[in-house]
């Protein structure tokens, strides 16, 4: 009641009715329209740039991961003929004949190896089988004679026993449609089997699932290490007087100013078997045998933690900088021990920074390429190294695209989980 005098004197206007509010909103919209279009014009160049260099490649990649026209284009008649085939027994003579003709003509145009390679990834041995058959069919007899006598099937089985099996035919049929999930299946260690059903890859060909899991585990480990190392550092930076924190900040940012390659290479110098750290440890008598610290997972984790640390420290710093020391003081004066005050007052207020730093570090590390490639050895390879392998060496772009697509899906999933839990608006990066 004591405050009545204040409230009545400050509250004067009655609330607006609905119509008036609508009109007001409209006026506001009109007033803002120009501002908004101006803002839009300002970012048009950027939008174009992002569209051309970022969105389109991603769309192209996603398309590639499901688009596979090679077999359908190279063996169009065989594919058509196999449409009716029920996978139960060997195809009829006519289908053998069609395939034989198409193989021979591909061989003549020097186009066979591409298809053979693609089919080989579905059914190993297919490459040699096809090239051998094509070679023999075009040399030994004219193919027309075989077709006339209706003995293509026997001839092909003569050339190679495997033609008496349905597996090569199933492989062709499995790859016959232009749009296929087979890359994604391959990326998840699965495939279409002879019956055209999805099943797991044979044990010895399973690599990607473990690789994905390993990539996630390494990334999680790196994120955790960055958090453990970065949190106290960010706290120190945020609480030191400006003059000294600036110097420290420069040291945190220093890695950004040197090339990634140089930094990674210097880790090799430090960690290799004949390297500085091993020398020192041996010299001090702490170890008798030189440790293998590089070209394995250990090397990857160490080097990447170092490289990604600033991405954890900066968001944490920017959040901590805005937490007034008086909160901790207030908590202490209210009777909380330092630890209790930290956990209940300080830590919760830094959560947006932890979230931002962790999500940034994690996303960067699951896609990291150079460092694992240089210092990872065999055990330190991550998913992106295999993507690069399929892009550059095996030229299986479809599989590379599917692996990339899975990575992208994971990142988006992570993002949405984070959004659910914390809210993306609470993300504080700078």
């Amino acid at each position, binding site marked *: 009641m*004591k*405050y009545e005098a204040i409230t009545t004197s400050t509250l004067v206007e009655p609330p607006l009715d609905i119509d008036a509010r609508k009109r007001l909103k409209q006026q506001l919209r009109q007033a803002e329209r120009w501002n908004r279009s101006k803002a839009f014009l300002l970012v048009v160049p950027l939008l174009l740039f992002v569209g051309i260099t970022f969105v389109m490649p991603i769309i192209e990649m996603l398309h590639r991961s499901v688009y596979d026209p090679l077999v359908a284009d190279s063996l169009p008649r065989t594919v058509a003929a196999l449409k009716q085939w029920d996978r139960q027994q060997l195809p009829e003579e006519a289908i053998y004949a069609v395939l034989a003709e198409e193989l021979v003509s591909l061989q003549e145009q020097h186009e066979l190896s591409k298809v053979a390679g693609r089919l080989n990834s579905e059914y190993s041995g297919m490459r040699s089988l096809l090239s051998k058959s094509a070679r023999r069919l075009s040399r030994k007899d004219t193919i027309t004679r075989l077709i006339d006598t209706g003995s293509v099937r026997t001839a092909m089985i003569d050339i190679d026993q495997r033609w008496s099996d349905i597996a090569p035919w199933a492989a062709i049929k499995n790859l016959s449609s232009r749009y296929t999930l087979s890359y994604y299946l391959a990326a998840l260690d699965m495939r279409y089997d002879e019956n055209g059903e999805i099943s797991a890859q044979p044990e010895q060909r399973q690599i990607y699932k473990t690789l994905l899991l390993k990539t996630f585990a390494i990334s999680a480990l790196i994120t955790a290490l960055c958090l453990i190392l970065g949190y106290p550092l960010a706290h120190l930076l945020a609480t030191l007087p400006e003059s000294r924190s600036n110097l420290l900040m420069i040291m945190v940012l220093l890695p950004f100013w040197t090339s990634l390659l140089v930094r990674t290479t210097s880790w090799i110098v430090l960690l290799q078997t004949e390297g500085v750290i091993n020398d020192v440890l041996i010299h001090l008598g702490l170890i008798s045998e030189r440790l293998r610290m590089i070209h394995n997972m250990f090397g990857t984790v160490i080097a990447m933690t170092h490289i990604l640390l600033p991405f954890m420290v900066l968001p944490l710093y920017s959040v901590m900088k805005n937490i007034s020391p008086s909160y901790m003081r207030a908590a*202490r004066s209210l009777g909380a021990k330092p630890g209790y005050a930290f956990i209940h007052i300080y830590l*919760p207020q830094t959560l947006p920074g932890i979230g931002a730093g962790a999500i940034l570090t994690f996303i960067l590390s699951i896609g990291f390429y150079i460092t694992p490639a240089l210092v990872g050895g065999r055990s330190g390879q991550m998913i992106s190294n295999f993507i690069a392998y399929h892009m550059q060496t095996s030229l299986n772009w479809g599989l590379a695209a599917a692996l990339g697509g899975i990575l992208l899906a994971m990142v988006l999933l992570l993002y949405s989980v984070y959004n659910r839990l914390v809210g993306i608006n609470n993300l504080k990066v700078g």
Partner: protein
Amino acid sequence: MSTLDNSYVRFQNVRKTYDGEILVVKDFNLDIAQGEFVTMLGPSGSGKTTCLMMLAGFESATQGEIYIDGTPVNNLAPHKRDIGMVFQNYALFPHLTIAENLSFPLKVRKLSKSDIEQKVKRALDMIELPQVAGRRPGQLSGGQQQRVALARALVFEPKLVLMDEPLGALDKQLREQMQYEIKHLHERLGITVLYVTHDQTEALTMSDRIAVFNQGVVQQLASPTELYEQPANSFVAQFIGENNKLSGKVEKIGNDRCVVSVEGCNVQALPVNVYQSGEATTLSIRPERIQINPENDFDNRFDARVLELIYHGDHMRTRVELMNHDQFIVKVPNGSRPLEIRKGDLVQVGWLSRDCRALDASSGQA
């Protein structure tokens, strides 16, 4: 120590330096009795917050001892001191609701759930904000946050409460309202309060005693009346209330009377900080103790010229030129027979010698 018997908080020869070069607090002594309301008043940077922080345990005294209830606390951690504290920016925990903020000190003390609930409710009722329990600090107005901060500092029933410019961020009307309420709470709960402000009206209206700070030194520690009526030096005279000062030299000095020459005029004054003739001095006269066309028993009367008249409702602020000094202020009360004066008039002004204090000359800088 026997002298601690009636003092609840005691600063004894406390000195503080942050950088090892400048003493921010110099030889600070203060005794606060149980239940007393003591204010530290002083200009910005004079060391008030530092003293408060030393008492709360967030800064350590470089030298000297601080006692609470007879025990030295120099090495006692802040959370063990049981001091309620209201910060200048409130420091309400932004990620907790108001109810959670208030229950924080109770949870720390491991009270039972029902006790906590009851106390929080009582605290919210006390500040007349029972409806905000579920809100976050960011959803409250400045004044409401201030009241919650006050409630949080009191909810665990500390015997000693420190407040560092708690009303600094509020507008004038709300500030006066809150001053009144803090004072009321202090009387009702019987707590000891050490209050910091640089608003002299706030200090005068709320405190039992005021310590006036300047540059790390207590200039005067006294009740509001004494501080206003009998400032011990020219800094205090200048800092508390309005004040006219005239610089001069002591001509003659007696027990309760001295003669000071200012620009060739002899002024009768009360010697406070002057001890011998020939000494330089600053005379301090409150504007409301000066009369225009003075009554007969006024032993100081001089010619002056009116320079400016400002209407203040209850009084007329009149600036006159006197003894070559053009910032001399006279407050003319707006009584039932108002004075007829105009700008440029030549008038006589006068005051009683006991209202004119001859203080030190040195610290006339303020």
